[in-house]
């Protein structure tokens, strides 16, 4: 099995017809079986088959505005508000009901607008990718959109093409396919048209099949399509992603918070209603008052504030080349503490390069490079195409300026590469002398060598075997791949075959590597500094992965191979994933296991990958990260798409995610604690006062005004130390915060009651006005204290818009009792003397909360 490849048997969905064993039939029979001929389908038949089988495209989870709209109501906060509006309306309190509905609408419109805009951006990104295919129809080759390919189409593929559908090969020449998108293996697979005698083969064994999404690396071929769209192997992986996604940690946190809020609200509503009724207040009045208190406790704009935070963050991240597809993942992006990443193309350039070449005896014989260039199938034109190793040899030669030195050689014949021999040979002529050059896997070439050249002298291969073994093992241990080059003088002949590949003289070795990205080391170090543990999940072997880690200075704690994982129980895997840095030779299913185990251990897990085989893991992780150049199915499964395959943009994104999380938490902590305090004192006052401390409409209006003042909270500055480490949703912390900071607000509410009752001897209306202003001032201004752990304004400045809007809201709340609207709401102008006391009282309150904050953060870590 190919490393990292499918380990499943053929997907049940692969075929759209009854047959599945296309590998066993002869190429010529494939035409008849699929109802076509060498001339291809007729246009009419192609149209008929499109109607029958559908377009050759993967089901995309489109988005509809209705779904986006409905999503806005899927939270407990909306439920509480709706219930309150209905009850208020039922008891004839139309105004109260209208204010609550206005709150719901405000939250919904804001949330919908931001989420819809973000979805549109992502859709535009998806639509920018469109593939073409060359098909033969009615005997003529045509270039058509890949989505129009149907079963029975005869498709031709050439170097660089992306295979448009699953096909049975009917004809090919030196065809090599890169199946990395399906298997994760970056080395190409050779294909033939020969029928195979296999029982229940794995897809990797199907050397006469071409699979959708794979790339032609070398040669050309023709095939008859037997499966399109979601019926292909590529499609079957993508279809598995249609299942609903697991909730992110942030979503789970919001849910827990909602549950806590509902319990608190229910307890307060029942308690206030029961006590008010017991002390003899009218039943309906008590019910409406308790409902208003419940609504006052609910942070109704929370969904909107969260969406605004997220979409603002998404816009900032887009400027940094990071496209956010699923807004809710941003918070988890910031809180991520484990990043699992593929190796190829993420930590490495994803491109094989020739690092060096060596010959026995230490000298670097230039003939090794000359011969490797002569025994080479890459096509060097404007662009060099072909087998990645051959391309790497050419690129090295061009960079070294030695490609001209082989012009004195004339090519005579070639014995092509095949995967049984794992080598190829060419016969070249120079000055009338013929030389057979063989290049291939070291063990294959060495088995055909009789001699070795060492410092210009020829020695029997046996005498240098130990030296060869030591060096090849060293290179292999260092994560390099080697290719051996050998030669022999040969007589002129009409043609040459594999039998001529014998009695060779070993000349030396070529060393290849997929080098680490230049900025990867810095990016990984930065991620570690930010508290993100980087783990490598690769289909490649462990030696290569360890070498990359060494190059990037990633400390490797443990290496776990796919074969080790299969021996482990789930609890053993859960404990192993904590220590392991590298997971080598693992299958897509094992990638899933690793991610699930890390999540089960309480980590917020990010996964970065770009192949089809990465899609399930991208789907499972809290944050799936892909790149713009990735296959569509990967991009589809990802939450975040990097427009540049660059790890350094990740750190920017994480920092942005942490800022968003920080601002969301500010809203939650502040809203819950100050609302809790206010509503608690309202409930207590309703028991001993001869009138309601605040009318239901006044409570609702204050709540609406308070929420509007918080609209710019998402743009607030976040202290540097807050973004240093990943934070977690900790409902216990929210509870402690509420329990601690809530009573501060109650204390000052009671103080206001005292001032209004015993200093001013206030009437109901004056009392309500006085408490409204005090309550509003304290509730709104406390944001400047709670938003930071530092000294407000002096060492931590709030955002400009937050300051402006908060102070404007305070000003509005202050003048409200003097306006017509205030009169309508039942307020009375307050005496000048009260304002002096209020200013002193609120200043003491804010300073006391700040002192309490110092105490609280000393003992409660978050």
């Amino acid at each position: 099995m190919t490393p990292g490849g499918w380990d499943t048997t053929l997907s049940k969905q692969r075929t759209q017809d009854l047959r599945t064993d296309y590998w066993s039939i002869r190429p010529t029979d494939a035409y008849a079986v699929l109802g076509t001929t060498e001339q291809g389908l007729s246009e009419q038949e192609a149209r008929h088959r499109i109607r029958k089988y559908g377009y050759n495209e993967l089901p995309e989870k489109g988005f509809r505005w209705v779904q986006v709209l409905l999503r806005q109501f899927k939270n407990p906060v909306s439920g509480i508000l709706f219930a309150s509006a209905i009850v208020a309306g039922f008891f004839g309190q139309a105004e109260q009901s209208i204010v609550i509905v206005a709150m719901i609408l405000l939250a919904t419109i804001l949330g919908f607008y931001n989420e819809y805009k973000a979805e549109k951006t992502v859709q535009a990104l998806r639509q920018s990718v469109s593939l073409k295919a060359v098909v033969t129809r009615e005997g003529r080759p045509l270039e058509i959109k890949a989505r129009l390919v149907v079963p029975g189409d005869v498709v031709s593929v050439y170097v660089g093409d992306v295979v448009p559908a699953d096909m049975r090969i009917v004809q090919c020449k030196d065809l090599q396919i890169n199946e990395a998108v399906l298997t994760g293996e970056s080395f190409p697979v050779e294909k033939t048209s020969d029928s195979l005698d296999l029982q229940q083969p794995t897809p990797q064994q199907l050397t006469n099949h071409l699979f959708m999404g794979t790339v032609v690396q070398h040669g050309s071929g023709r095939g008859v399509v037997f499966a399109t769209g979601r019926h292909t192997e590529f499609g079957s992986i993508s279809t598995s992603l249609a299942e609903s996604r697991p909730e992110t940690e942030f979503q789970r946190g919001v849910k827990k918070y909602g549950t806590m809020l509902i319990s608190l609200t229910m307890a307060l509503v029942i308690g206030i209603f029961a006590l008010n009724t017991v002390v003899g207040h009218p039943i309906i009045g008590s019910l409406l008052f308790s409902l208003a208190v419940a609504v006052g406790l609910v942070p109704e704009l929370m969904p909107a504030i969260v969406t605004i935070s997220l979409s603002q963050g998404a816009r900032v991240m887009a400027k940094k080349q990071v496209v956010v597809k699923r807004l809710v993942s941003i918070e988890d992006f910031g809180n991520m503490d484990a990043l699992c990443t593929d190796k190829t193309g993420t930590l490495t350039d994803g491109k094989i390069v020739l690092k060096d070449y060596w010959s026995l005896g230490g000298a670097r014989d230039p003939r090794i490079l000359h011969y490797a260039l002569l025994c080479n199938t890459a096509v060097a034109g404007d662009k060099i195409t072909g087998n990645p190793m051959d391309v790497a040899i050419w690129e090295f030669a061009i960079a070294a300026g030695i490609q001209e030195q082989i012009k004195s050689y004339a090519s005579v014949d070639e014995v092509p590469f095949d995967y049984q021999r794992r080598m190829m040979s060419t016969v070249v002529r120079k000055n009338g002398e013929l030389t057979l050059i063989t290049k291939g896997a070291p063990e294959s070439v060495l088995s055909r060598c009789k001699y070795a050249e060492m410092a210009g002298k020829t020695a029997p291969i046996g005498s240098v075997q130990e030296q060869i073994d030591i060096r090849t093992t060293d290179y292999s241990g260092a994560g390099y791949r080697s290719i051996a080059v050998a030669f022999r003088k040969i007589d002129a002949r009409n043609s040459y075959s594999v039998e001529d590949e014998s009695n060779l003289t070993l000349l030396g070795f070529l060393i290849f590597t997929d080098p680490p990205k230049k900025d990867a080391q810095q990016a990984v170090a930065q991620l570690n500094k930010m508290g993100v543990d980087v783990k490598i999940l690769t289909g490649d072997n462990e030696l290569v992965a360890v070498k990359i880690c060494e190059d990037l200075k990633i400390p490797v704690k443990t290496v776990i191979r796919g074969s080790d994982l299969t021996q482990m129980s789930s609890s053993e895997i859960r404990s192993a994933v904590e220590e392991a840095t590298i997971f080598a030779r693992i299958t897509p299913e094992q990638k899933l296991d690793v991610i699930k185990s890390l999540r089960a251990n309480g980590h917020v897990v990010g996964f970065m990958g770009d192949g089809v085989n990465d899609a399930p893991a991208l789907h499972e992780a809290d944050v799936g990260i892909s790149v713009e150049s990735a296959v569509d199915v990967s991009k589809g499964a990802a939450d975040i798409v990097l427009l540049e395959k660059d790890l350094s943009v990740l750190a920017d994104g994480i920092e942005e995610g942490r800022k968003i999380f920080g601002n969301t938490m500010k809203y939650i902590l502040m809203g819950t604690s100050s609302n809790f305090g206010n509503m608690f004192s309202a409930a207590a006052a309703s028991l001993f006062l001869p009138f309601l401390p605040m009318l239901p409409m006044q409570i609702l209006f204050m709540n609406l005004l308070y929420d509007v003042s918080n609209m710019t909270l998402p743009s607030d500055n976040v202290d540097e130390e807050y973004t240093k480490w990943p934070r977690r949703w900790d409902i216990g912390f929210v509870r402690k915060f509420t329990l601690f900071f809530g009573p501060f607000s109650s204390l000052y509410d009671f103080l206001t009651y005292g001032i209004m009752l015993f200093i001013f001897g206030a009437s109901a209306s004056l009392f309500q006005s006085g408490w409204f202003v005090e309550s509003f001032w304290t509730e709104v201004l406390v944001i400047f204290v709670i938003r930071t752990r530092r000294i407000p304004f002096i060492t931590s400045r709030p955002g400009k818009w937050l300051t402006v809007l908060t102070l404007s809201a305070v000003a509005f709340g202050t003048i409200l009792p003097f306006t017509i609207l205030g009169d309508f709401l039942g307020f009375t102008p307050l005496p000048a003397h009260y304002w002096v006391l209020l200013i002193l009282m609120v200043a003491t309150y804010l300073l006391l909360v700040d002192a309490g904050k110092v105490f609280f953060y000393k003992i409660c870590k978050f």
Partner: protein
Amino acid sequence: MTPYPDLMVFWAVCISWSALFLTAVSIYLYLDSRKSRRQGAHFNRFGFLRDFVFVWVLLGLLGLYIVSIDRGSSIVFASGNVVVEALLIAYTVKNRPREEQEIEKRKRASENAMRIHVGKTP
């Protein structure tokens, strides 16, 4: 004469209750945090008193508020608040988180370095 003399006791109970509830929560959180720290950590009586400064201030404020409201004296209320505010400002400045102080120090150092650099520029 206040029209609500009979409410004074209810009011005093309510405001005292909220201050005492806050004190109780503070003690609970403090003990909870000590429990989660390593076992056998030395209990520092002076540290305990210092950590609870805000609670002492809170209880002092409670006394001030009850007395001033009971007497109906705005002067006592206002002057008491001013004194407490001064105390709280001093406490907050003195107890800034260490992390914040380090960041400030770093910032100041980099600003100084920048100033020196700018000074050297011809």
